[in-house]
């Protein structure tokens, strides 16, 4: 039994005669999507909370969607990702008055997944940096309270709440991250390591994993070619999509110029005997003329041929 199982974090797009589509365009598109993942050896998918209703609409229920996946060789939905980058009404994470609403929203997600065995709720812990700055200890404490509550709730559903630190969110520096984990319950709130997001923020994901390996519930393995050298992280309106300095932040593993040291991370995971899911991710892979299908194949090739020999 391997220690690692590979999942695919869904950002899939493909060109069609009708223009750019996602796999939610039709059951036929979904069929093609799942088969492509299956042949590459992915056993699961990670998806977004806003995609869940689409599975319901296409298949009648999430359980029936999982049946559809299993018929094609992919086993399950592993994690659901939740984020509200904009501090819209009711979703300012650093405002206690919004917490009841946010917890309720997260519980609605988990309730929707009741009939399947989702293992984690992965969250962007704050709104964009610029909508919550200045980031101070008091705000971090308020945010920690929120995710402790959510963690308690998801535990009732048998799922872990895990924190995904976008380079453009409010908990992004080593000091902020340390403070946050000091204030959260290790039994309720877990660390989720997105390799590229940390590197862009000038944080070494290997060192971070070494520090928080006991709380690490999973990974997004994706690469970047750029550090944030101009404080993009705090630039409105959207550092990830609209940066004036870097057109494409994220890359699939195995490209020339990649800054993430994946082999070093694999060695660290081996040292700590990590057992669980690793998600391949490369959002925005089609910027500049590439495409998700090829990026996914090349990324998984790298996983199979370079990383798996280190630790499997």
């Amino acid at each position, binding site marked *: 039994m391997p220690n690692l199982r590979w999942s695919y974090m869904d950002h899939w797009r493909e060109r069609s005669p009708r223009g750019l589509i996602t796999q939610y365009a039709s059951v036929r598109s979904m069929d093609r999507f799942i088969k*492509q993942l299956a*042949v590459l050896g992915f056993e699961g998918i990670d998806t977004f909370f806003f995609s869940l209703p689409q599975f319901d609409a296409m298949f009648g229920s999430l359980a029936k969607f999982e049946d559809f996946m299993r018929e094609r060789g992919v086993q399950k939905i592993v994690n659901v990702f939740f984020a509200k980058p904009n501090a819209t009404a009711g979703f300012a994470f650093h405002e206690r008055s919004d917490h009841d609403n946010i917890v309720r929203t997260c519980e609605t997600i988990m309730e929707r997944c009741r009939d399947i065995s989702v293992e984690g709720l992965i969250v962007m812990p704050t709104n964009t940096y610029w909508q919550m700055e200045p980031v101070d200890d008091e705000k971090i404490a308020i945010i920690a309270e929120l995710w402790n509550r959510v963690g308690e709730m998801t535990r009732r559903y048998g799922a872990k709440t895990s924190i995904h630190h976008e380079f453009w969110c409010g908990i992004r520096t080593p000091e902020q991250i340390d403070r946050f984990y000091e204030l959260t319950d290790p039994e309720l709130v877990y660390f989720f390591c997105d390799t590229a997001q940390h590197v862009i923020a000038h944080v070494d994901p290997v060192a971070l994993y070494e520090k928080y390996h006991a709380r690490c519930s999973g990974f997004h393995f994706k690469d970047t070619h750029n550090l944030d050298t101009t404080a993009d992280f705090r630039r409105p309106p959207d550092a990830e999509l609209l940066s004036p300095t870097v057109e494409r932040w994220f890359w699939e593993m195995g490209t020339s110029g990649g800054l993430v040291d994946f082999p070093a991370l694999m060695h660290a995971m081996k040292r700590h005997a990590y057992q669980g899911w690793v998600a391949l991710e490369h959002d925005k892979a089609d910027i500049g003329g590439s495409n998700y299908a090829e990026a996914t194949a090349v990324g998984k090739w790298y996983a199979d*041929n370079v990383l798996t020999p280190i630790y499997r």
Partner: protein
Amino acid sequence: MPGIQFAYALNAWRPTYDTFVRPEQHARALKTVSVSGFRAVELNCGAGRWEPLGNLEMMEANHGSIAGFAAFLRSCGIDAVSSYFFDPGVFLSRAGIPLAAGKSADRAEIVERVHEYLILLSALGGNRLVVKPAPAYWRTGAPSKELLRNIADLWNEVGELATKQGIQVAMHLDCLSAVRTEHAIAELLGATDAKSVGLAIDTAEMVLAGLDPLAIYNRFTGRVNHVQFKDVLLRDELSEATQTNAELNFLSSGGSREVTRWFWEMGTTGGLVDFPAMLSAMQAGGYRGWIVVESDQTPYPATSAMLNGWYVKHKLASLT
């Protein structure tokens, strides 16, 4: 050669003189093919920058030597070049003009051009030179005795050279070919040396041309020495594949129906090829050789490679 082995044709990536030319692009395609479950590739022959994987000159320029190219393939998870596709009608030398298989005056130069690919195949683990054996129907009409004789003489000579290197010639009949009936196929096979020259069945090309690849296999079982798997949703019911300039007006433009794309991945809804039946027949017939999966005309080569890989793994592998 052990049983049946699958390979993948790289023609879907459509190299031209200014696209799909960089080794890093080749590496991405090869890795895509590899991780989709294929460990060997079929490449096209061609000259200079027009076919960067299809000639020794570019191979040496990019990788130093044939051995360097083999190492490059291995670094991408590809163990062998199963086969080279050799069409005398494309640019096979930088100075040359397209050659004609049926023209006896071109025979010496065609044979000369073959040498390079026999060397490459031997060094890269392959054993099939897949040739376009005959002109398009619209150029010659039904093949005359003389045309068949010229063609057979050419490929027999190539076959004799090839067998010295452990390679066989496989005659690939596409949907435009002058050889497009069972009778003509039988005549051509009858005029060629069974020890060195065989028939390549391309499932979709044959269906499009109105032939039944399964029936062809069953009739010529002992002579089939190469197979290509791809699917097709339509037949040439309007007989446009035999009309003037069919390469452009039919195959490329889609004929009067303006069919966007003739060829599809295995498993496509509405596909006319019965691949499991074909594979079962090949098993029963004792076929030992390559099945090269193709996806020419796809706008999405990576997606096609993965979908074809899925089909092989989930629908065909259990039959082999």
